[in-house]
């Protein structure tokens, strides 16, 4: 059986470039701003009380019925079991006996909230899987990077409300009923909760008027049962993870004179360090952008030898290992990504990349390079990175001295700019 065909592109704007006179992109940005207005990038939480508030606002703003020149009041709270709260919410329109004056409209929520029946967000994605929501650039003063914001699929929920009008005039019933039917003429209407449009369906209309009461109090009471097809978004479930970071590395620079002189380069070469975790299957890895000048490739901190352990074709983004790195190995690629392969120092002088190797023979810890060092990229002993000040010092313009003695026959590699 073949894979079912899926429609990948649904043209919701009828093939037009505009929506209600505005550009589609602008409309999309407007919608995104509405649902993320309280912070920068993530949507606001929508929980039960937000949905209840949305329902109260919907009824209060939509069903405005005027009776005898006065708008029928809507009790603007979901009444609960705390008795004093009931009175405190209707004291404004209570009589001298403490009873609510007729007419009035109240909203009663059924306490049980059922799993949602909204077909667009039903059980389609299992296990609260997190999905990409936004990629947000970050800058901490030293390194530029990005955070990946993920959220799980919202949970659908159905909330049932009884909108009840209690009055003593048939005309008030008619006015209210007309408004309800007009608003639900397409079966559903919408309320807006934190920028999201939440559908409300009119389920049933029933009359609970105690008509048969001959001796008792007479009034009209009608229930409009509505179901809100809501969904829950909980900010506690959001996930923020850092993506690949780009770092500025401050390099030591050689100055004039015979004595050691260190200074910080104001405009250092922008070096990208990209980290990938091996899956034990692939031998080719990509950094996602063109590598103009490749400095080092390391596996678990051990610098690999080009054309021996790996290969890289200039101008591409791929690193191809001769073997397959083990699952979980950390592959670090440091490179220069420029528009072309030209690098310049802070004075505008063009820089070249130098690579030199020496074999330690116990005679001398000092190594003289063939070019004048402008910036040292890395010093490695048998693939292990040596750190400046602790493990080596730069003497003069082209001489490096190790502070510790390596094992006889060790291979010392220098990568530098000149």
């Amino acid at each position, binding site marked *: 059986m073949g894979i079912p065909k899926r429609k990948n592109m649904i043209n919701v704007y009828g093939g037009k470039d505009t929506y209600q006179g505005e550009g589609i992109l602008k409309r999309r940005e407007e919608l995104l701003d509405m649902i993320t207005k309280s912070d920068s990038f993530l949507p606001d939480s929508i929980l039960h*009380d937000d949905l*209840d*508030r949305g329902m*109260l606002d919907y009824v209060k703003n939509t069903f405005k019925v005027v009776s005898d020149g006065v708008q029928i009041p809507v009790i603007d*709270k*979901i*009444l*609960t079991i*705390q*008795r*004093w*709260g*009931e*009175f*405190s*919410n209707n*004291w404004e329109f209570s009589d001298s*006996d*403490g009873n609510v004056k007729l007419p009035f409209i109240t909203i009663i929520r059924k306490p049980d909230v059922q799993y949602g029946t909204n077909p667009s967000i039903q059980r389609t994605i299992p296990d609260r899987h997190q999905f990409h929501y936004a990629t947000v650039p970050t800058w901490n003063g030293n390194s530029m990077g990005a955070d990946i914001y993920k959220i799980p699929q919202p949970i659908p929920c159905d909330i049932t409300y009884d909108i009840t009008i209690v009055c003593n005039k048939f005309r008030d019933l008619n006015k209210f009923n007309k408004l309800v039917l007009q608003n639900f003429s397409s079966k559903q209407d919408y309320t807006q909760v934190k920028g999201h449009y939440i559908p409300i369906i009119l389920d049933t209309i029933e009359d609970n008027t105690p008509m048969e009461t001959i001796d008792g109090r007479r009034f009209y009471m009608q229930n409009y049962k509505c179901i809100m097809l809501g969904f829950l978004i909980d900010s506690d479930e959001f996930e923020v993870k850092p993506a690949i970071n780009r770092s500025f590395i401050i390099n030591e620079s050689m100055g004039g004179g015979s004595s050691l002189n260190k200074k910080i380069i104001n405009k250092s070469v922008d070096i990208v360090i990209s980290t990938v975790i091996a899956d034990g299957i692939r031998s080719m890895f990509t950094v996602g952008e063109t590598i103009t000048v490749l400095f080092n490739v390391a596996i678990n901190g051990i610098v690999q030898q080009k054309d021996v352990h790996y290969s890289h074709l200039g101008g591409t983004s791929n690193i191809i290992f001769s073997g397959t790195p083990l699952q979980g190995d950390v592959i670090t690629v440091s490179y220069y990504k420029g528009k072309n392969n030209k690098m310049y120092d802070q004075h505008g002088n063009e820089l070249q990349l130098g690579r030199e190797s020496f074999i330690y023979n116990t005679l001398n810890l000092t190594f003289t390079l063939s070019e004048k060092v402008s910036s040292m990229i890395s010093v490695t002993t048998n693939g292990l990175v040596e750190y400046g000040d602790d493990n080596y010092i730069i003497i003069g313009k082209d001489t490096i001295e190790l502070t510790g003695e390596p094992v006889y026959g060790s291979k010392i590699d220098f990568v530098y700019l000149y």
Partner: protein
Amino acid sequence: MNNKLPITRLGKFFSQDDFDINIQMGQEYLHGDLNMKLVLYRVDRQKTDNDDVYAEVGMDEIKFFPPVEFNALVKIEEPKNSSYTKGLMRYNEPGNMTLSVYITHLNELGVDIRYGDYIGYADSEEKLRYYTVTNDGRITSDNKHKMFGYKPHYRSIVCAPTQEGEFRGV
């Protein structure tokens, strides 16, 4: 301005003086002999900050006016032995409390008892129980609450026991 209607019914054999002296004698018995004291906590509905949607408050967040001690005839029903679900999760709590309080007494104290207010009543020296008013007995138009059909003289107030999570007098 409220119109005041003089009550002249039963005038040939009952008057305001008779009404007052009956109340005084009743109060002498109720306040002097029985001396059942209760504490009324009137909820300050304006100063109590409640929830925007549900009008609820959390524990110890109900603001109330200074408690007032008052006298009433107290009747408490037998405790109920119940369970939350099909015989499991048993709970046992006092029955409802019905108070009979003189309207004159409330007027003298300058207080009114309203639906949802709280009332404390001491079971023993160590145990003070709180009840919430479920029927404030404001309507006293029936013959029972009128002294010989002349004027209402007392209110019957029904209260249900509260949980500590709802109210505990602080």
